[in-house]
Each structure stands twice: as C-alpha cells, then as structure tokens.
C-alpha cells in the first residue's frame, strides 16, 4: 500500500462525514454504533482481502481446496445457527453438501463454461465464494422449511407411509416445500429490473475493468451457477440429513 493509496482511502472515508454529521445532529446516540460498525467493516474487509491476496499469491490448488473446505464448514455453522438447530447434528451433512454442490457447479463454470484454469486461485476463489454465499443463504430458507414442515406435519408423513408409499416418496411433499422456499425468493429477485440500482457484482466487474458486455455475460454465468448450486446443495443436504438419521427425519 503506497502513500497515494492511503491518501485516497482517507479521502474516501471523508465521505462518511456526511452520514456521521447527520447522525450527530439528529440521532447522536447512534453515532458510536455507526463508527464501530464502519471500523469493524474495514477490518473485516481488510482481513478478507489479505486472505484472498495470500491465496492468489501462493496460487496452489490444494490451498484453494482447503479454503473451500473451510468455507463449507463455516457455512454449515451459519446454516445451523440461522435455522435455529441448536444441538442438532446437521452440520456434517450441510458441510459435505455445501462442499460437493458448490465444487461441482463451480468446476462446471470454471472448466467448461468460461473456460479458464479451473484451480487458479484468481478465478477459483471469487467464483466459489459467490456460489458458496448464495447457497448458504438459500439453504437457510430451504432446510428450515423442510425440517419445520416435517416436524409440524408428521401426520402427513405417517398418512403417506400408512398408505404404502416408500420413505423417500412420503418425503416428497416436504422436499417440494423446501424447493419452493428456495425457488420463490430466487424468482422474486430475478424478476426485479435492475435499472436504477445495479447489482453490486455487476458494479464490481465494471470497476474491475470489464466491458459492459463481458460483465453482462459473466453476471449471467454467475447467476445461473448460483441458482443451480443452491438447488443442488439443498437436494444433497436433504438426502444426507435423512441418511445420517437426523432426529427430525422419520424412518
């Protein structure tokens, strides 16, 4: 980081004087909290960027894979926390599904669609991070919908089993509800026309120097990958949660 970059960073941070000043005038007790989250955001971002910088610098396929494994474990913890699944052993199933689902779709994007050096950290890290982030978000919706439906509508499961359906067939209505919990927000988000506010990913790509057409194409690839990865991860998670004998899954 040279002196010029530090100066420019300082100049950018000066912009924050506008909201800070407004808070100072109108809602003074929120000001410390605002300053705290700004500082925390800066530190988090810096640490994340240093990590990515190190991964790109070393550019080792094994290290990138290790990073993906760590992301999958971290993601599974977030899913468990947000789904309010305290003390329930879904973490291994979620971590394995996140890793496998994201890795398969990511490899398809990197190795076939783009195609680039699939394990090169420069491509591997951002593409996998994007797929992982989206899959974790959607899995929170899908898995919680699936588990709560199973708990609340156990009678339906028994009714279907009692009428001769196999275990997997009897789980289908619950899987459908989980799928809808993932697909419905996706439809909502995709149906919004981003005319006045551009998606941040697109903005990032434009700022990174891509032409608008290339940014559009890459955005399209990434959105397709995100939607596919989220559904694949959900399917794998449900199957694994069921196979590993989670307490909510009837047998």
């Amino acid at each position, binding site marked *: 980081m040279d002196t010029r970059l530090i100066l420019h960073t300082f100049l950018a941070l000066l912009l924050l004087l506008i909201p800070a000043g407004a808070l100072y005038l109108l809602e003074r007790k929120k000001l410390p909290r605002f300053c705290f989250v700004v500082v925390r955001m800066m530190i988090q971002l810096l640490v994340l960027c240093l990590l990515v910088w190190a991964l790109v610098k070393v550019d080792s396929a094994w290290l990138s894979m290790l990073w993906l494994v760590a992301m999958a474990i971290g993601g599974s913890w*977030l899913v468990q926390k*947000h*789904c*309010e699944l305290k003390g329930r052993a879904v973490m291994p199933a979620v971590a394995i599904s996140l890793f496998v689902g994201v890795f398969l779709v990511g490899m398809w994007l990197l190795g076939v669609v783009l195609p680039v050096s699939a394990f090169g950290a420069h491509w591997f890290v951002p593409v996998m991070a*994007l797929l992982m*982030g*989206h899959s*974790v*978000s*959607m899995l*929170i*919706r899908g898995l*919680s*919908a699936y588990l*709560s*439906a199973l708990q*609340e*509508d156990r*009678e*339906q499961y*028994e*009714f279907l*089993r*009692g*009428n*001769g359906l*196999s275990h997997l067939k009897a789980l289908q*209505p619950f899987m*459908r*509800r989980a799928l*809808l*919990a993932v697909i*419905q*927000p996706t*439809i*909502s*988000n995709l*149906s*919004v026309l981003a005319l006045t506010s551009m*998606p*941040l*990913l697109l903005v990032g790509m434009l700022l990174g120097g891509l032409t608008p057409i290339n940014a559009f194409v890459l955005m399209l690839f*990434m*959105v397709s990958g*995100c939607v596919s990865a989220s559904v694949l991860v959900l399917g794998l998670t449900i199957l694994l949660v069921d196979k590993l004998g989670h307490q909510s899954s009837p047998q």
Partner: protein
Amino acid sequence: MLEFKDATIKVGGRVLVEHFSLIARDGQLTCVTGPEGSGKTTLLRTLMGFLPVNEGFVSVDGELLTIYSAHAFRKMMAYLPQQMQLLAHQLREPEPLEPEAEEYAVWNGVLPSVIKESRPGPLNAEEIMMLAEKTLSEAKDKPIVIADEPTALLSPELTMRMIQLLRQQAEMGKTVLVASRKPQMIDYADQVVKIETR
C-alpha cells in the same frame, strides 16, 4: 385376514396393550372398541408397522409382520388416521407466496432470515369425508382398510356416509379394521372386539 395373537405392545417401557388377540376376516368390518387410552390407536399403528410387537405376533394373510416386512404390507393397506383434520396439505398443496425481492449473495453478503410458513387451518367435516373417499377410491386394489376413529369429527349424516363407505369396502371382499367408540359404528360392524382398560 389380519391376526393379533397374544400381542403385547410397549412404548418406552410402558405397556400400552397386553395379551391382545383378534382375527379380522376378509369381507368383514371389524371394529375394535374400548375407552379412551385403552390402546386402540396403538393396535392400528402396530399393524401399520409404526410400533413393534414385544410379545406375541401380528400376521397379515398368515405372513408375520416384522419391521422389515411392514412396508410390503403397507402397500396392501389403505389407511385413514385418527387426525384426519390435520391433513390439510393432502387436499390443498401449500403454495407459498412469492416474497418481496431482496438483496442476496449475488448482490451482497446479507443472509436471509428464515421464512415461517403459514399453516393451513384444519379440515372441516366435509373435507375429512372428501379425503377419506379420495383415499379409498385411490386404493381400489388394496385388500385391507385400516381406519382410526373415522367418524370422530363427523356430523350424524356424514357418520352414516362414512359407515356406508366402509361397509362397501367390506362388501368388496376387503378386510376392514376400524377403531371406534361411536355406537353407530359399532352397530354396523360384523365383529366387535372390546379392549378392556388395564
């Protein structure tokens, strides 16, 4: 033909049914009756393979019911559970509303909150009857019908319709086993077996 022979069923160390015997024949409507908590539902759930038999045995057409054979036997059965009113999703498939568009990972890193699904209301008596008719019409080839308190939430008119429906099943040559405390249901049964409270 269904047979319980000297069957004892325990759940969590608690004896729910003790030394119970019954033969339900083809072409007959057999009604198991007894006071609340006497184990009627337990018997039917055991027959479905949802609960194990601790002593004695249960057989279907002479074949022993075990945890491994239960699924094959269930394929021969049509089942009307006690809590039919809770099966709203069998008649009305849940269609969650399309939520408002929100920022998500393609846009930024905000994690969504869990969406609580709104639960449908319980089925009314007409709907329960409709679901029973639908279930039995879809199970024309199945030789066994199991019904747990099928008339519990029905009006007197619908109770008669349900009894007629179950009698029709028996007249088709099926083995019909019902658990019920309703006098009307007991009156129309070919065989009544009473479970005494322990």
